[in-house]
């Protein structure tokens, strides 16, 4: 069972939680190591995402039966 890829928001929330835990009391070194690794992986992933420079614009269209579809749009929708 694979989870959907983590959203940016979820990663940032997780990072906040990891920092708080590492700065709290009562951790075993093994736990601290695991949190450290997870924290660094989130940081690297988000940094990679920040590098993405192309703005994606899509138009919402009403589809059949109340659904909504998207179609790509150039930067200058006319």
């Amino acid at each position: 069972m694979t989870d959907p890829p983590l959203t940016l928001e979820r990663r940032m929330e997780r990072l906040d939680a990891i920092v708080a835990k590492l700065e709290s009391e009562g951790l075993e070194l093994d736990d601290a190591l695991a949190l450290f690794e997870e924290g660094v992986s989130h940081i690297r992933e988000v940094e990679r995402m920040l590098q993405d420079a192309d703005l994606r614009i899509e138009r919402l269209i009403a589809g059949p039966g109340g659904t909504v579809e998207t179609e790509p749009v150039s930067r200058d929708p006319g």
Partner: protein
Amino acid sequence: MSPRPFRDARGARRAPGAAGAWSAGGARPEAYTVAAVNAMAKEMLETALPPLWVQGEVTGWKRHTSGHCYFGLRDRSAQIRCVLFRSDAQRLPAEPEEGMEVRALGRVTLYEARGEYQFVAREIEGMGAGGLWRIAFERLYRKLDAEGLLAPERKRPLPRHPAAVAVVTSPVGAALQDILRVISVRAPWTRVLLSPARVQGDGAPSDLARAIRLAGRSGLADVIIVGRGGGSTEDLWAFNDEVVARAIASSPVPVISAVGHEIDTTIADLVADLRAATPSAAAERAVPDRAAMARELSTAEDRVRSGLARWVLKRRDRIENARNALTRSVRRTSRRRKELLSQYGEKLDALSPLGALRRGFAVPLDRSGRILRSIDAFEAGDTFGLRVADGTVPCRVEDTDLARENG
């Protein structure tokens, strides 16, 4: 004082004094048809009085099912019957209240079929501050407020890092370009979902409402920006419409209203989760700033690393402390053991033959090393050794006349 010449219903030029008046001779004057008279009168009125503004108090306002509105305008000494046809009535922000002072633009005319003098209005303005616009705004405000839709508790917080932002606005307006520019600078990874709509004129309110609902229904947006650039009160009027307000209020995700204007707040601003002064400002609130996030991440990395280091040091300290404690415990044990050993040593020492020798006792030993304990073991002339602490003294028995102890 004769009436002026005019044209009759057949277009012939008539001078009433001539053909229709009593003439000396007794012939009956020609009679006009009612339709003719009314037509003449209507033409005279419309020729003599061009469109003009009339000010007065509204009385007896009635909107028919046809959409046409019938009312009276009056002042202290006169009144006039008025009509506002459907196509013009549709543009009214609100229907005037009874007794309200208004100005109406239109023309005086005659309704020929009934021979009624009336004023056909094209536009009506309220005389109070803000006029009919303010009336409409306040009526809707009170209505939505009574339903709790304007309550501050309803305002939802915006997501700090939205994956997608929906934008409801005109596809050709400056507002969209402003929003796109801000997002591409601050957070270009954000997915932008355009839900286009007319933002002014006929049909704009229902189009905006449809576009807002589409954005919400998509399930793809984390936040919705609804907006347009600046304009007059009339231009912005769609954002004071009830259907737009209700679409915003029932949005499943937070809505930022962005009606660029310096005038008043719109109803959309009041119902939205956040009001931004301009479309650019809305985009700034909707998405995080890339530079700020990079700093945030750098700080987070420092804290994560130092957080781990703290635990490593703590662990090392713990190990160090444990080792010290063990060492101290071992030392304590050895010392005690040594003390015990030395105590035993002394006791043994005291009990051992060597101890006795050191205290001055001597042991006579025969040639075979046997201890000679009794006088009976000695005879005169015998040789024996006398063991003292540090050696053996060769001895010979001189005399067996030895004194016995204890007789």
